[in-house]
């Protein structure tokens, strides 16, 4: 654990410094967590709701965080779980499968004011939507967020080897999908 993170966790455990430390934590991680969630749920408003919920849960639970794992991996894991829960709820609400929901989310991008992707970028989103959930997560974190395999391994609690294989398979599937269009 680096010194900056150590100091931040210490401050988060202190009554007098908590509010200031929490603001610092939000400032440090809001953008990274936002894009992590946005890549999963696609829509800005949903991402905003989920991100706020993530930080509210962090606010309520961070005092219990003992530093056994990295702070960022704990935060990313909460964000991932919140986003997955949201997607599952949405699929249930519309009575469709998760795969169908992914297709629906990508289709909605065409009319989304906060999406300015070109044809290729939209095709890439369509291709990502065909992947299994775990491969989508790995691909998004590696390709769009440029996280290191070690960091992704900490977040998803898996081995770097498995991640590399997963990313390779995902890339091949996406390549094949785009070529077939």
């Amino acid at each position, binding site marked *: 654990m680096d010194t900056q993170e150590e100091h931040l966790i210490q401050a988060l455990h202190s009554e007098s410094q908590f509010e200031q430390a929490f603001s610092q934590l939000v400032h440090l991680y809001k953008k990274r967590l936002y894009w992590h969630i946005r890549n999963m749920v696609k829509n800005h408003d949903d991402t905003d709701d989920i991100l706020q919920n993530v930080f509210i849960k962090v606010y309520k639970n961070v005092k*219990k965080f003992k530093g056994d794992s990295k702070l960022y991996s704990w935060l990313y894991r909460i964000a991932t779980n919140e986003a997955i829960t949201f997607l599952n709820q949405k699929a249930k609400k519309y009575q469709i499968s998760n795969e169908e929901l992914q297709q629906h989310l990508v289709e909605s991008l065409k009319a989304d004011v906060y999406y300015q992707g070109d044809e290729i970028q939209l095709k890439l989103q369509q291709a990502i939507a065909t992947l299994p959930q775990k491969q989508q997560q790995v691909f998004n974190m590696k390709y769009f967020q440029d996280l290191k395999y070690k960091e992704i391994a900490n977040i998803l609690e898996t081995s770097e080897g498995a991640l590399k294989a997963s990313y390779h398979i995902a890339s091949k599937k996406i390549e094949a999908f785009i070529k077939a269009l």
Partner: protein
Amino acid sequence: MKKSKHNQEFNIPEGYFESFEIRLQQKIQQENTVLPNTQESGFTIPEDYFDTFESQLNQKIQSQKHSSKVIDLFSVRRLIYISSIAAAITLLIVFLPTTSSETSYTTFDTSTIDIMDIENYINDGTLEVSDNDIAQLFDDIEFSIAEHSIEKLNDDTVIEYFSEEEIQLDYLDPENF
């Protein structure tokens, strides 16, 4: 590189300039985590979204602080289980004299039953309490659960409840990591 004649009195950490580029590159990479994403994915955000995010979050946290207290259903359920066991034991004691000797009635001491034994008994699934039994406990609550049986609640309603209320999920507990 030699120090200029104007800053002879200032010192710098050892290796500062040698590692400067690496640290600068790391900082730029950290700052730019947002940029490659926007460029490559096509996703955009409302203007000033990140600048106003903290104040919006703060408002939401403050409003949640003043929200009503939540009934912990799990504790209530456990309480009902234990109460049911206690009631069953009481009934057993009451009716025992009619089927067995008087001696057994007088020698039966409920205080010797360990609460953990009762919990284990529940956890083993030996005793089942229906949702209606739970609902009867809440007959003084504004929304009558008795009238709208818990069995009729669909998954969405339950999920919504868990989302809105402060039920803590296991994954939030850092000790689970």
